[in-house]
C-alpha cells in the first residue's frame, strides 16, 4: 500500500474491488489524492468514503469507470470537470455539483446547493430533493454529449439561465398541492437545450427567451427514460410521477440577443 493511502484508514474491504475510507479530519487535498491513487489501482471498482464533511472537489480529476459512495456532506464543486466516474452522495451536496462536468454520473440523496450542473457538457446528475439558485446555468451539449439534470423537488432563481444545450427536468415532488415552483427567471437568455417542468409555474416566472409548449411524443419518451432512472434510484413509482403533466421550455431563438447589436461599419446598414 502506498504512503498516500495510509493517511486514511482503510476500514474494510467487504468484497473484491470495494474499499472503504474514513474521511474524518482529512483535508480535501489528502482525500482526493488518495481517491486518485486508489482509483488507478488494479481491481478497485468502488470506493466508499465515510464521514465526509465539506471536502471539496471530490471526483475532480478522477477518470474512468470508478464508483464512489460518499456518506456525509461533500463540499463545493463535487465532480467539477469530472470525466467518467459515478458518485453517490448519501446526504446533501453543496454548491457547484457537476460544475463543467464532462461525463459520468452524480446521484444526490438529498438537496444540492447553488449552481448545480453549471456549464455541464455531458453525463447525468440526479438530485432527490431541491437545488439552489442558478442551477443548470449555461448547460451545453456537443455532438453525442447531452447532459441531463433531474431534480426531484424544485429549484431557486435563474434555473437554466443561458442554457445552451442538454436537458434539465424539475419534478416538483417537494411542492405541496397547488404550490408553485420556487424559481423566477427560469431560462433567462436560454439559447439551446430543453427544460421540462412538472408542477405549477406561472408564466411570470419564466425568462423572456423561452417558448412554452407541450412535450411532443419523443420528448415524453426522453422524460420517461429520465424519470424511470430517477424513480429507480430514489425508490419512487415512475408511473405516478409520469401521471401528471409536463411543460416544455425551449429557446425562442438560437440567437436571443442578435438584434441588440450592430456592426459599426456603414456597409452593413441598409442603404437606399
Amino acid at each position: 500500500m502506498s504512503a498516500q493511502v495510509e493517511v486514511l484508514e482503510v476500514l474494510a474491504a467487504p468484497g473484491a474491488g470495494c474499499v472503504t475510507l474514513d474521511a474524518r479530519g482529512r483535508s480535501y487535498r489528502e482525500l482526493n489524492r488518495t481517491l486518485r491513487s486508489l482509483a488507478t489501482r488494479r481491481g478497485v471498482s468502488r470506493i466508499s468514503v465515510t464521514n465526509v464533511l465539506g471536502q471539496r472537489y471530490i471526483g475532480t480529476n478522477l477518470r474512468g469507470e470508478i464508483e464512489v459512495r460518499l456518506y456525509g456532506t461533500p463540499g463545493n464543486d463535487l465532480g467539477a470537470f469530472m470525466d467518467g466516474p459515478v458518485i453517490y452522495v448519501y446526504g446533501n451536496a453543496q454548491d457547484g455539483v457537476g460544475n463543467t462536468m464532462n461525463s459520468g454520473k452524480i446521484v444526490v440523496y438529498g438537496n444540492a446547493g447553488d449552481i448545480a450542473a453549471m456549464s455541464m457538457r455531458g453525463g447525468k446528475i440526479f438530485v432527490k430533493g431541491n437545488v439552489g439558485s442558478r442551477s443548470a446555468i449555461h448547460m451545453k451539449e456537443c455532438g453525442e454529449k447531452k447532459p441531463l439534470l433531474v431534480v426531484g423537488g424544485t429549484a431557486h432563481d435563474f434555473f437554466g439561465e443561458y442554457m445552451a444545450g442538454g436537458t434539465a427536468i424539475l419534478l416538483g415532488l417537494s411542492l405541496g398541492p397547488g404550490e408553485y415552483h420556487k424559481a423566477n427567471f427560469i431560462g433567462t437568455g436560454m439559447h439551446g437545450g430543453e427544460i421540462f417542468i412538472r408542477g405549477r409555474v406561472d408564466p411570470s416566472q419564466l425568462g423572456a427567451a423561452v417558448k412554452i409548449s407541450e412535450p411532443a411524443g419523443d420528448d415524453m419518451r426522453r422524460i420517461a427514460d429520465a424519470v424511470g432512472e430517477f424513480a429507480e434510484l430514489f425508490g419512487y413509482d415512475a408511473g405516478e410521477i409520469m401521471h401528471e403533466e409536463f411543460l416544455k421550455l425551449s429557446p425562442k431563438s438560437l440567437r436571443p440577443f442578435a438584434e441588440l447589436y450592430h456592426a459599426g461599419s456603414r456597409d452593413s446598414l441598409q442603404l437606399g
Partner: protein
Amino acid sequence: MKSYLLPQFAVHRDDDRCIRCKVCVSQCSFGVHAYDDEDDEIRSNEGACVGCQRCATLCPTGALVIRRHPHEFRPNANWSEEMLLDVKRKAETGAVTITGMGNDKPHRVYWDHLLLNASQVTNPSIDPLREPMELRTFLGRKPDGLLFKDGRLITDIPPQVMIETPIIFSAMSYGAISYQAQLAFMQAAQELGTLCNTGEGGWPMDFRRFGRNVIVQCASGRFGVDPDYLNQAAIVEIKIGQGAKPGIGGHLPGEKVTAAVAATRMIPEGTDALSPAPQHDIYSIEDLSMLIYALKEATNYEKPISVKIAAVHNAAAIASGMVRAGADIIAIDGFRGGTGAAPRVIRDNVGIPIELALAAIDERLRREGIRNRASILVAGGFRNSADIIKAIALGADAVYIGTAALVAMGCTLCQQCNTGKCAWGITAQDPYIAKRLNPDIATRRLVNLVRAWTLEIKEMLGGMGINSIESLRGNRLHLRGIGLQEWELEVLGVKGAGQ
C-alpha cells in the same frame, strides 16, 4: 430607411496605372471594387470601404490610394464627426454599436512619458554582442523563502513555466481569429520558446501538440474546457475580464459558429456562443479561490494557474485578493487592449491605462509582502520594445502582445474584426478569405517581430549596465517621468527627469 452616414474613406484609382488585373476586386472582402465588363472599367463603392489598405498594398502598379474622405462638416469642438456619425448610426439601427480592436482615443500614453536610464562612467554598460544577456523568465509562484538541509534544497518549488523572452502572445480565440492565425501563434510561440494563449474559445485538437507553449483559458462560457484541455496546456488562465470590455461578457454570433468552431468550443453549430458577464461560480474572492483550486486539483497541482482581469479603478486591491486566493500568475489587461468584438462605448470609456494599473499593483503587492507569490503579466497596447522594457521596470514579469502581433501579420487596425470579413484573413471565418493568411509566412513575421524586440531589449539592458532581466524587474530607479504631474509620478512611483 435611407442612411445619412457619409463614406469614411475615398478611393482614388489612377486610371493610367490601372492594368485591370482585378486584384482589388478579389481582395476587397468588403465588396468595394467591381469590374464592369462593358466599359472595361473598375468601379468602387467607396461607402463600403473601411480603410484596411489591403487593395492598395496588393495593387501591382500602385494605382490605388485610399485616404480619409475629405468631406467636412462645419467644425464644432463639441460635436466631432465621430460623434455625429455615432448618433446617426444609432438612429438608424437602434442597437449597440460593436467594433473591433482597442480603444483609439487620444488618452495619454504613459510609456511615452517615461525615460530609461543608461550607465555612464560608473557601473559600465555591457555590450550584448559580446556578453550573454539573460532574458529567460520563470512564470509561477515563488516560495516565501528557501530552506536547505545538508546543502540540498528542501523547499517545495511551485510549478514554474520557463519562457526565453518576456514576450508572450495574448489571448485570441479561434472563432475570433482564423484557424490559420491561431496556428501561426502556436508555431511562433514554439519556435521562440515562449507562450501563446488560446483565448476562451477552446483549443483545436490539431494544435494540442503545441501544449508546452500554450496557455488555455477557463472563462465564463467554459468553452471546450475538459480535463484534457486543462492538462495538455502549460498554464491555465481564468479569464475574469478583458481590457477592451471590462465588466461585460461576449458573444460570438451564431453565423460564425461553424462546424469547426462549434467542435472546438464544444457547443452546437450555429448557436450564439455566449460568454456571460460574470463567471456564475465566482461572485467573490472566496469563490475565485474555489475555482483556482478546482483547476489545481484538475491538473494535479502541476501547472501555474493564472487569473486575468481588466485594469479597473480598484485593480490593486483586486490583485491582492487574487494572489491571496491562490493565483500563481495575475494577468492585467489595460484599456488599450484589443478585442474581436466589443461595444464601442465600453471599449472607449471603461478601464484605466495598463501603466498606472501595473505600477499600483506591483507597489501594493510589495507593500503587502506577497509580490513573490504571483508573476505579473501585463497586456493592453504594447507597441514597441521600449514599452515592454519600461513595463518590466515598473514590475511586470512578462508582457502579452496582441495588437502588435496582428499588425505583424498584416493587420492595419481597421477595426472590423467583429464583421468576420478581415481582408487580411486574420479575423476572418469565411474559409475563402481566411486562406489568404499563410500560416508559415505569418509565423515568420511573428518570430521576426519578437526576435527584433528581444534584441532591442538586450541593447537597452546592456546600456543600463544590466545583464539579466531579473535585475530590472520592478527597478523603478531606472525610470524617470517627463511631462507628468505630481500625482502621475506618484502613482507610477518614479521621479521626474533630472531629479
